[in-house]
């Protein structure tokens, strides 16, 4: 095909993204919080582990893993945090409030799995 048929309004730039630069998840994705038990410092509360929810928003910019930051590691691979919505009925089997009541919580990318 001739170049003119593929003319775009701005020049396309081909960039190879570094590992972790692109968010793995996007708003609306169904996710599950991983289940693992780090010894010592963690920032993912135990009450959400293994629970299922939805990505409400990708938080920008990328940032360091706050669990590693606790050990004084301020540098390192930056990844995204995500604002996750989890219904309270998913967290608590006997939840008696509205079925629409929910938790909003920021979770680092390495703690999320596609559901």
């Amino acid at each position, binding site marked *: 095909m001739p170049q003119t048929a593929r003319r775009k309004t701005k020049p396309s730039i081909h960039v190879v993204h570094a590992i972790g630069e692109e968010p793995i998840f996007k708003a609306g994705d169904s996710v599950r919080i991983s289940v693992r038990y780090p010894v010592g410092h963690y920032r993912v509360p135990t009450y959400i582990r293994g629970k299922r929810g939805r990505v409400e928003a990708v938080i920008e910019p990328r940032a360091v893993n706050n669990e590693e930051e606790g050990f004084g590691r301020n540098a390192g691979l930056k990844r995204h945090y995500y604002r996750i919505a989890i219904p*309270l009925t998913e967290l608590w089997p006997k939840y008696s409030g509205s079925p629409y009541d929910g*938790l909003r919580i920021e979770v680092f990318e390495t703690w999320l799995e596609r559901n």
Partner: protein
Amino acid sequence: MQPHDDDHGHAKTTVQDDPPPSYYEVMETSVRELLVEKEVIGADEIRHMLEVMDSRTPALGAKIVARAWVDPEFKARLLANGRTACEELGIDFFEDTQFLVLENTEKVHNLLVCTLCSCYPREILGLPPDWYKQKPYRARAVKEPRALLAEFGTVIPDDVEIRVNDSTAMLRYMVLPQRPEGTENFTEEQLASLVTRDAMIGIVRANTPNRKEQSR
């Protein structure tokens, strides 16, 4: 009295009337003095930081809320990027903190908590109340928010969605309470006076104007 203590001119009685400093107060003073002696921190830095901290009170949050209530474009900017909107009003933040303002509406009621520690929007509201940092609130907010709200006198109808926001990373939150009824002619200042710290945590609504004010 610690020799290095700047108490902003409190009238002090004689030293022997002061209770002795606690073990932990002695520890704090000692750590601070050693760090200054070793030039790890500057001699004036703590005092300056105290001034910064003292300047952060719920009045700042109330001002932001009142402005959002009267100015829809400011409100839109506030909800899109809390930090830059606050910077418009001269309120700055530390480091990488991001600030998300959560709007309460007819359909949604937001509540703030930190179950892992005590994250709180200190740059806007100052230091949090003790109860926010203690077990009952932090344990129950994510599990039974309606009962907790009711304990504070706040009843949320069943058809309103409650969102409990648990801070775990660099996002700090503040609730933008609903504007109370009967305030159509209020000035920004009058509106701000209705907004309490607890309303910006989301545990209560903003105050309604009392009858006395309405008759002005």
